[in-house]
């Protein structure tokens, strides 16, 4: 099975001048290297803040409306993601409990199975 694992945004990740520290980048790279070694990683990317984003709103036959970011509901926004191979939801939950950086800082991961 494949899973989309999303890192939810935080006030820090949404801030205009947000830059992960060198040590955080290194810890995450080592974690990703480990996952890659286990054949887990299909994709992994970070997103820039929602200030650079846009939303396209559809409503019936009306021409879609475009709204520029930033978007207010920070905790519902996505800051980065993995697409991972996993045996089961429990397997991926156990793996992602070990993700670096989020522990000390606090944060939320959402894990969702991909349709096959």
């Amino acid at each position, binding site marked *: 099975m494949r899973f989309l694992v999303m890192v939810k945004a935080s006030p820090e990740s949404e801030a205009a001048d947000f830059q992960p520290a060198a040590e955080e980048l290194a810890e995450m*790279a080592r974690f990703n*290297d480990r996952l*890659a070694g286990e054949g887990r990683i299909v994709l992994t990317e970070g997103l*820039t803040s929602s200030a650079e984003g846009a939303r396209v709103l559809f409503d019936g036959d009306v021409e879609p409306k*475009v709204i520029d970011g930033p978007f207010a509901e920070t905790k519902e926004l996505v800051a980065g993601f993995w697409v991972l191979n996993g045996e089961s939801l429990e397997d991926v939950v156990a793996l992602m409990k070990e993700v670096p950086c989020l522990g000390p800082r606090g944060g939320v991961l959402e894990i*969702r199975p991909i349709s096959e």
Partner: protein
Amino acid sequence: MRFMVIVKANEDSEAGKGPSAELLEQMGKFNEEMVKAGILLAGEGLTPSSQGARVVFSGTEEPKVVDGPFAETKELVGGFWILQCRDREECIEWIKRMPNPDGHAGEVEIRRVAEAADFENMTPEVEALEGRLRAQSSGQA
């Protein structure tokens, strides 16, 4: 530039009601068009949030696991594409043409994917690891 295009969930997707035959067909054509234009890097749909979980980290405590479903349907992700576009405007123009035969009200969010140059504190060690990762994972999506 690469963009993550997030299609938000709706009551139907959260209820596990699959897309209509018409939507599947039109979406297939739309995906094909994006492949021909050379912009489609990846695209997936998600199962309802009732099959998902959240892992909540707070300081030094053991992370807490919360099982789905999650309430705020319109903020949930229903599916996504990763698109390679010249700029955000090109991406927006593509997404405005996304098929919506059932006339659903809905929201699609477009977010730029960060590149190595976006990280000021990137070290050569990390860049080397990231490069290896890309080489290993490329072509799997």
